[in-house]
C-alpha cells in the first residue's frame, strides 16, 4: 500500500513538472491593445480568425492587418508592437526573462516596436526574409516591402545585418536606417530624416494612439 502511494505521488509530481512549462508556454505574451479596420490572427494549427480588441496574443501567433487597417499589441512587459496596413507578422518567440531573445518574423509590410523594457542580456529582434535588426531600448521601425528590408531607429542604438551575411553586422545609430535591397546585397546604413521617421510612425500607429501622441504634444 505504502509503495502504491509513493508511486502515485511520484507520477503526480512528474505530471505537474511536465504540465507547468506547457502552461507557461501557453500563457499569453500580450494582448491586442488597439485595432483599426480589418485585422486577423492565426493561432498555431488553426485558421485565421478576426482579431478583437483585448484578444490575447501568444507566442507563435500570426497577425495580419489588411488595407486601411492597423493594430497594436502590448506585451506583458509593456513593450509594444504596432502593425501598419498590409502587414503580416508572427510573434515567433517572446521571452522577457534575462539573457533571452524575443523576435518577430515580418513577412510583409511595416511594424513599429516600442521597446521600453528589456531584461539584462536580452535582445529584441525583427526578422524579415533578408534581414535581422535588433535593439536594446528604442523605437524600432521595420519594413519588408517589394523585397526591400529596412530598419529605422528613432532613439537609442541598434544593430542589423543581411541574413545571408551574418558576419557583417552594422551598428545603427539613432536617426539612421539600415536597408537591405536584396538577399545578396550588403546592408546600407544611411541617415533617416525626421520627416521619414515621422512618416513611418504615422503609418504604423493606430488612430487612437495618434490622438494620444497629438494630445501629449499639445
Amino acid at each position: 500500500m505504502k509503495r502504491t502511494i509513493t508511486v502515485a505521488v511520484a507520477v503526480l509530481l512528474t505530471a505537474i513538472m511536465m504540465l507547468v512549462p506547457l502552461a507557461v508556454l501557453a500563457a499569453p505574451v500580450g494582448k491586442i491593445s488597439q485595432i483599426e479596420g480589418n485585422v486577423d490572427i492565426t493561432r498555431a494549427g488553426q485558421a485565421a480568425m478576426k482579431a478583437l480588441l483585448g484578444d490575447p496574443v501568444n507566442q507563435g501567433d500570426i497577425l495580419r492587418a489588411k488595407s486601411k487597417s492597423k493594430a497594436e499589441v502590448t506585451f506583458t512587459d509593456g513593450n509594444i508592437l504596432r502593425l501598419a496596413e498590409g502587414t503580416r507578422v508572427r510573434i515567433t518567440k517572446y521571452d522577457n526573462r534575462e539573457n533571452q531573445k524575443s523576435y518577430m518574423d515580418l513577412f510583409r509590410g511595416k511594424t513599429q516596436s516600442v521597446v521600453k523594457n528589456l531584461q539584462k542580456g536580452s535582445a529584441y529582434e525583427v526578422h524579415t526574409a533578408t534581414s535581422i535588426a535588433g535593439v536594446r531600448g528604442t523605437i524600432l521601425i521595420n519594413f519588408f516591402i517589394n523585397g526591400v528590408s529596412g530598419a529605422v531607429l528613432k532613439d537609442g542604438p541598434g544593430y542589423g545585418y543581411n541574413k545571408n551575411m551574418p558576419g557583417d553586422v552594422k551598428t545603427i545609430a539613432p536617426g539612421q536606417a539600415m536597408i537591405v535591397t536584396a538577399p545578396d546585397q550588403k546592408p546600407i546604413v544611411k541617415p533617416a530624416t525626421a520627416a521619414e521617421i515621422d512618416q513611418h510612425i504615422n503609418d504604423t500607429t493606430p488612430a487612437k494612439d495618434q490622438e494620444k501622441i497629438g494630445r501629449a504634444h499639445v
Partner: protein
Amino acid sequence: MRKIPAPVPSMAVLFMLCLLILTPCAFGQEAPDLQAGIRHYQAENYEEAIDILTKYRQKDPSSSMAAFFLGMSYKQANDIPSAEGQLRDAATLTPPVRQAPVELIDVLYQQGKFEEAKQWIGVAETNNLFPAKIAFLKGMIAASEGRYQQAIEAFDQAKNLDAAYTQSADLQIGVCYMNLRKYDMAKQRFQTAITQDPLSDLGSFARRYQDLVEERSFLERPLRLTVGLMAQYDTNILSEPTWNGFWLQRTGTDFWERDEKSFKYLTTARLDYVPILKGPFTFNASYAAAASFQEKYSTSYDLIANTFSANPGLSFGRFMVVLAGNYTHVMKRNPGYQRYSENYTVGPLLRYMPAPNHILELSAGYAGKNYFEAVTQPQLWDQSSRGLDSYIAWYWMFGARGGLLNLKYGFSTESAHGAYFDNRGHRFTVNFMSPKYWLIRAQVGGEMFLQDYQNPNATFDNTKRSDQTYTLTAGIYWDINRHLTIIAPQYMKTRVFSNIFLYDYDRNVYSVGLELRF
C-alpha cells in the same frame, strides 16, 4: 429459409456508420475551388488564396485565371520570384488574362529583369493593353537603365493617357531630372507633385526629394566660395631653435633670444570652379588667397599667398586619371610686401576605387621652388630647387555620418641651387575624421617627415643635415549649417629634431575660427 445470423446486419450497420462518420472528414478539407481562391485573394487572405489556388492549379494546370490570381497572391505576399512564373502562365495560357502582362512586367522590373520586361512591354503595346500603366512601367525601366530622357518622355505619356498617374509621374520625372543634375527642373516637378496632394504619401516623398535636391544642388554647385577667419596663438612664430648655444659660442651674443610667442590672425578665401562636363571629362580649378597678420614682427613676417590650381581629368567609372597642377606665390613683408617665394607641382594623378567608400590615389609630380631673397654664397645657401613630389594614399569613408580615415606615404627629392639644401624626404601621414554627431566632428592627424640632406654643411662642422619632423593636429569642428562651420579649438604641434641645432625647434599653435561657404 435460412435466417441471416444477427451479427451480420450489426457489422453492416457499423460499417455504414463508420462511412457516415468518416465521409465528412474526407470531404471536409476544402476542395480546390477557383472561386474560393479568388474570394480569399479579394479579402486579402493571400496565404489562404495561395494554398487553394496552388491545389487548383495542380488539378487544372491550363487555367489562366487560377495562374493569374495565384501570381497576384504571391505578389501581394511579397514572394516576387514565385509570382513571376504564375503571371507568365496567365499571360501565355489560353485564354490569356488581359491584365497579366502588365503585372508580369512589374514583377520582372522589380527583379531587375529588364530585357524580358521590355519584350512584354512590346506585347502590351501591340495589344493596346493598359497603355497608361505600360507607359509608366516603361518609364521606370528606362530610369533604372539610366535612360532618363526617355524615361521622362514615357512618364509624360502616362500622365497624358491617364490623369491618375499625374502625381506619381511628376515625382518620377523629378527624380530623373535630379539624376540628370537639372536641379531647377527637378524642384519644379517635385513642387507640382506636392501641390497635387500635399498630404498623400507621394506628396511626402516629393517633399523629401525636394530637400535632397536642395542639398545636392548646393554640394554640386559649379562655383564655390569658402572664406576662413582664424585667430591663432603661436608659441614659436619664428621657428627659433630649441638651443642656441652654438651662436652664443660663435658670436658671444644671445642672438636668438627673442620673444617668439605671438597672436596671429589668418584669413583665407578660396574660389572653386567645378563644372559638370559631359562624357568622361572632369575638370576643377581653384584660386585661393591666404593672408597672415602677426601681432609681433608684422613688418618682417606677415605673409600673403596666392594659389592657383587646375585639374583636368578623365573618368572611367572606378578609375580616373587627372593632370594635377598648382602654383603658389608668396609675398612677405620687409617692411613692405615683396615677393618671397613661389612653388609649383605638375604631374599625373591616378585615382582608383577598389570598393565602395575606398579610394586609392597615386601621384607623381614635377615640383619646383624659387626663393627670391638674395643670399650670400647662393651656390651653398639658395633653397630654390627642382625635384619629384610623389605619394600613394588610401582613403576610407566610413559610416553614414561622414567618417574618414586616410593613410599616405610620400616620397620627394629636391635638387637645390644651394648645395646645402639637396635632400630626399619620406613623409608618412595618417588622418582621422570622426563621423558627425550632433553637428560635431573631431579630427586627429599625425605626420612624420624624414629628410636626409645630401651634402655636408661646412658652417656646421661638415655635418650632413638630417631632420625628423613630427606634426600632430587635433581639432573640433561644429557644422552649424551647410554655410557655417566653427573651428573650436584646433591644436597643432610641430617638433623638428635635427642634427644641426639651427633647424631643431618646437612649436605649438592654438586656433579658433570659422569657415563660411557660399
